[in-house]
C-alpha cells in the first residue's frame, strides 16, 4: 500500500480543511449557549464549510470545530485523499485500508502527550471549566460528547473499545449517556460490570484525529485502535490515563477520565438526533462519574450537531454501515455489485445491488443484514439488480416503484432489535428497543421466463443500438440542444 498522508490530529485536519476552503475560521466571539450549535446546524443543512470558532464566550483559550465530517470532501481530506474524490473512490479506499493488516498502537511517554498539558484532579474537576455547548435549544443538557470516543476495556478479554456514545453534562462531575444494550460497551456493562456491581473505568477523548473519530463510530469488528492505524497507515500514539489503566490518544484535545457507575443513574436527553428529530424519551441512562480532566493548551472541542440531513451522523454512518455490509455479504460469497446508503435516508435504508443468480437471494441478503451487528441501525433493505446504479436514486426509485411486487416483494421482519431513536416506532417499542424491519425485493423473479415475462427496460441506454446512441450523442449540440449531454 502506498504511503498515506492523512492528518494525524484534529489540528492538522482543521488546517488542511481551511487550506482547501472546506473550513472557515470564525474570529468573532461565539456563545456556547445555542449560537455555536445554530452555526453548526446551518452549515450541515447548507453543506457549508466546517466552522472553526476561535473565540468562545466565557471560555478564553478554547475553540470549537463543528461538522467535522459532514461532507464527502472533508471525508476525503481526513483520509489524505484529493477533496474532489468521488464517493465510490472514497469507498474503495476505505475497503482497501480496512482489509489491510492491523497496525497496533504505540504507547508514548506522558511528556510526549499534548493531551497532558493541563491536568485537573480532585476538587479542581469541573466539566463546566470546558466550553460544553448547548447544541440545540430545548436539549436535556449541554453535550460534552457529540464527536468523540468513549474508551473502555473488557476486563476479562482485554479488548479495547472506542465508541461514539453521546454524553450529556448532568453536573460538573457527572455525565449521562445513551449506550445501547447491543453496542460493544452496552454488552460489556451487561455482561460483566452490572451483575458484579462494579464500576467500569472509562475515558472520553474529544478532538480526536478525524480517522480516530471515524474508527470510533465505525461498525467494524476490528478493535478501534488497530482500525485507526489501518485507516491512517501508521500506529496511533496512546498514553496512559491519570486515574485508571486505560490508554487514550496522546494527541486528543481533551480527555475526561472516570468510572461508569453500576448502581446510580441520572436523566439523559432529550437530544436532537441523527434521524432529524428529538425522538428518544428523557430517561435514566448510563451514568459517568468524572475523576480527572486533561487537555491541550488552546484545546478545541469538536461538535457534531445532529438534525435534518446532512450531518456526520448520517453521512459517515451511512458510508461505514454500507461498506461493512458489503464486506459481510462478500464474505458469504453473495455476488453483490455494491451497497449504498443514501445519507438522506438518515442511514435507514440499505440499497444493495446484486447479480440475481439464484432464488431467494434478496431474502438471504436481508436476513444477513438484519441479523448482523449492523442490523439495529437500519430498518429497510432494498435489493436491486446489477443493471441498476445504486448511487443513482432516480434509477433505484424507478426500480422500486415498478419491480417491487406488493405481495411477493415486501417482507416484514417482526420483533427485531431496534433503538429508542426510531421516529416511526411506537412509544412502547422505543422504550424496549423493539424493532421491525422490511425487505423491498426489486429483482425480477428467477422463475419468470427471461424472454417473454421479464419486461424490457425502455431507456436510451437500453433499447437503441450502440451506433445510433453514439450518433445521437455526438450530434446533440448540432440538433440545437443546449442541455447536458447525458
Amino acid at each position, binding site marked *: 500500500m502506498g504511503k498515506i498522508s492523512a492528518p494525524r490530529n484534529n489540528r492538522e485536519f482543521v488546517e488542511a480543511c481551511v487550506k482547501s476552503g472546506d473550513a472557515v475560521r470564525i474570529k468573532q466571539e461565539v456563545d456556547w449557549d445555542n449560537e455555536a450549535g445554530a452555526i453548526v446546524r446551518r452549515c450541515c443543512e447548507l453543506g457549508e464549510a466546517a466552522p472553526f470558532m476561535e473565540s468562545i464566550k466565557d471560555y478564553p483559550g478554547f475553540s470549537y470545530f463543528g461538522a467535522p465530517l459532514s461532507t464527502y470532501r472533508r471525508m476525503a481530506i481526513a483520509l489524505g485523499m484529493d477533496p474532489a474524490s468521488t464517493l465510490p473512490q472514497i469507498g474503495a479506499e476505505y475497503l482497501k485500508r480496512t482489509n489491510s493488516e492491523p497496525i497496533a498502537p504505540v504507547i508514548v511517554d506522558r511528556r510526549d502527550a499534548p493531551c497532558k498539558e493541563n491536568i485537573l484532579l480532585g476538587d479542581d474537576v469541573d466539566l463546566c471549566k470546558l466550553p460544553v455547548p448547548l447544541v440545540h435549544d430545548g436539549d436535556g443538557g449541554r453535550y460534552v460528547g457529540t464527536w468523540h470516543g468513549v474508551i473502555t476495556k473488557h476486563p476479562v478479554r482485554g479488548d479495547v473499545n472506542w465508541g461514539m456514545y453521546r454524553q450529556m453534562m448532568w453536573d460538573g462531575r457527572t455525565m449521562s449517556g445513551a449506550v445501547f444494550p447491543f453496542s460493544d460497551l452496552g454488552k460489556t456493562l451487561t455482561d460483566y460490570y452490572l451483575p458484579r456491581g462494579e464500576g467500569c473505568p472509562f475515558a472520553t477523548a474529544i478532538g480526536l484525529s478525524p480517522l480516530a473519530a471515524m474508527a470510533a463510530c465505525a461498525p467494524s469488528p476490528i478493535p478501534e485502535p488497530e482500525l485507526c492505524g489501518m485507516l491512517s497507515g501508521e500506529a496511533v500514539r496512546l498514553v496512559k490515563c491519570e486515574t485508571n489503566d486505560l490508554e487514550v490518544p496522546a494527541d486528543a484535545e481533551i480527555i475526561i477520565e472516570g468510572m461508569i*457507575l453500576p448502581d446510580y443513574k441520572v436523566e439523559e436527553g432529550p437530544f436532537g438526533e441523527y434521524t432529524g428529530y428529538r425522538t428518544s424519551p428523557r430517561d435514566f441512562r448510563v451514568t459517568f462519574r468524572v475523576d480527572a480532566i486533561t487537555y491541550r493548551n488552546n484545546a478545541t472541542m469538536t461538535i457534531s450537531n445532529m438534525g435534518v440531513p446532512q450531518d456526520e451522523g448520517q453521512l459517515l454512518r451511512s458510508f461505514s454501515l454500507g461498506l461493512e455490509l458489503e464486506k459481510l455479504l462478500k464474505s458469504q460469497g453473495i455476488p453483490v455489485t455494491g451497497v449504498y446508503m443514501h445519507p438522506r435516508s438518515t442511514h435507514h435504508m440499505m440499497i444493495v445491488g446484486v447479480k440475481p443468480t439464484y432464488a431467494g437471494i434478496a431474502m438471504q441478503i436481508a436476513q444477513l443484514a438484519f441479523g448482523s451487528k449492523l442490523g439495529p441501525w437500519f430498518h429497510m433493505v432494498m435489493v436491486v439488480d446489477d443493471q441498476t446504479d445504486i448511487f443513482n436514486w432516480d434509477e433505484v426509485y424507478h426500480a422500486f416503484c415498478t419491480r417491487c411486487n406488493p405481495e411477493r416483494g415486501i417482507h416484514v421482519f417482526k420483533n427485531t432489535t431496534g433503538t429508542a431513536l426510531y421516529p416511526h416506532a411506537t412509544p412502547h417499542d422505543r422504550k424496549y428497543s423493539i424493532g421491525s424491519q422490511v425487505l423491498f425485493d426489486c429483482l425480477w423473479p428467477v422463475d419468470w421466463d427471461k424472454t417473454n415475462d421479464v419486461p424490457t427496460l425502455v431507456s436510451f441506454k437500453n433499447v437503441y443500438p450502440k451506433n445510433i446512441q453514439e450518433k445521437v450523442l455526438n450530434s446533440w449540440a448540432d440538433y440545437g440542444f443546449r442541455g447536458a449531454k447525458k
Partner: protein
Amino acid sequence: MANKWEVFVMDLAELAEGKELELTIRTLNDGLHKYTYQRAKVEVSSKLDQFADSLQVRLGRGQLSDRKFSIRVIERVERLPERYR
C-alpha cells in the same frame, strides 16, 4: 438575586401545587454552571409572585411550555451514594 430554574416533565400534572415535591431541576442562571442539574425538595406555585425564584417548564421532547411557575427550593437531595462522592 432571584434564581431561574427549569424542569422537564411529561405531564404538567407532575407539578402539583401546595405540597412538597422532589424534582430534578436545572439552573438557568447565567454563568459557567448554566443548565447543570440538581435533585431538590421544592414547592411550586402558578402564582408567579408566591416564591422569589422562577421555574420554566419543558415537555418530553424539549418543547417550552407556556405555563410558568414560581418555586421555592427547600433543600438539595443527594442521591449519589456516599462511596462515590
